[in-house]
């Protein structure tokens, strides 16, 4: 585990939905980094899917927080080893997120767009695969079921 500014342990979880203003602040912070040429962002939004037993009104997220933050360090190191990116920020919601609200925010910056693009794709996919985050899908008509990433 390296100790550089880019790789240090961070808390990725935030309580409640990720607000557009938070995203704007994250973007604005990068205006002093004039070696950056491109930012790539992925945002996950809770979808009101129709399921066999009703439509999803919200997802209640929980996580094995310490393990998720540790796994995130590993994914970060892999991303920085593979691409010459300048920064990488990842946030995930905990608690109840309504359909239409944002629950996941992946943000990479790099001198050129290809690196930013590829590292966001990688990190988004790996977070979904490797972080112990659990989602209880709350149905609008009452009841719930458990989300699973395919």
């Amino acid at each position: 585990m390296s100790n550089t500014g880019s790789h240090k342990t961070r808390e990725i979880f935030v309580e409640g939905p990720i607000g557009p203003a938070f995203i704007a602040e994250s973007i604005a912070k990068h205006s002093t980094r004039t070696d950056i040429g491109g930012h790539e962002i992925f945002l996950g939004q809770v979808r009101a899917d129709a399921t066999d037993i009703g439509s999803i009104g919200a997802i209640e997220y929980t996580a094995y927080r310490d393990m998720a933050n540790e796994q995130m360090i590993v994914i970060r190191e892999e991303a920085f080893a593979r691409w010459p990116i300048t920064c990488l920020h990842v946030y995930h919601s905990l608690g109840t997120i309504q359909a239409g609200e944002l629950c996941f925010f992946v943000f990479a910056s790099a001198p050129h767009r290809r690196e930013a693009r590829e590292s966001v794709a990688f990190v988004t996919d790996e977070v979904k695969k490797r972080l112990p985050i659990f989602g209880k899908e709350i149905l609008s008509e009452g009841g719930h079921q458990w989300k699973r990433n395919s």
Partner: protein
Amino acid sequence: MEVLLFGSIAEKAGASILRVEAGSMEQLRTELLMRIPELKEMRYAIAVDKQVVHADRELKGTEEIAVLPPFAGG
């Protein structure tokens, strides 16, 4: 040892922490199936000190154990 339970597994167990005695992963698995019979029909992984472990191995009893249903982040 304390075993942390999450998501659908915590729901089935009606608890988010179980106290279990087990000297190995094998014993732990057997013990968990007795305490939470629904596990038989569920997909889950066991993490030892925050790393998923599949093979059998000894447990000292000081490890942090967690039973994890399918991941659903994003």
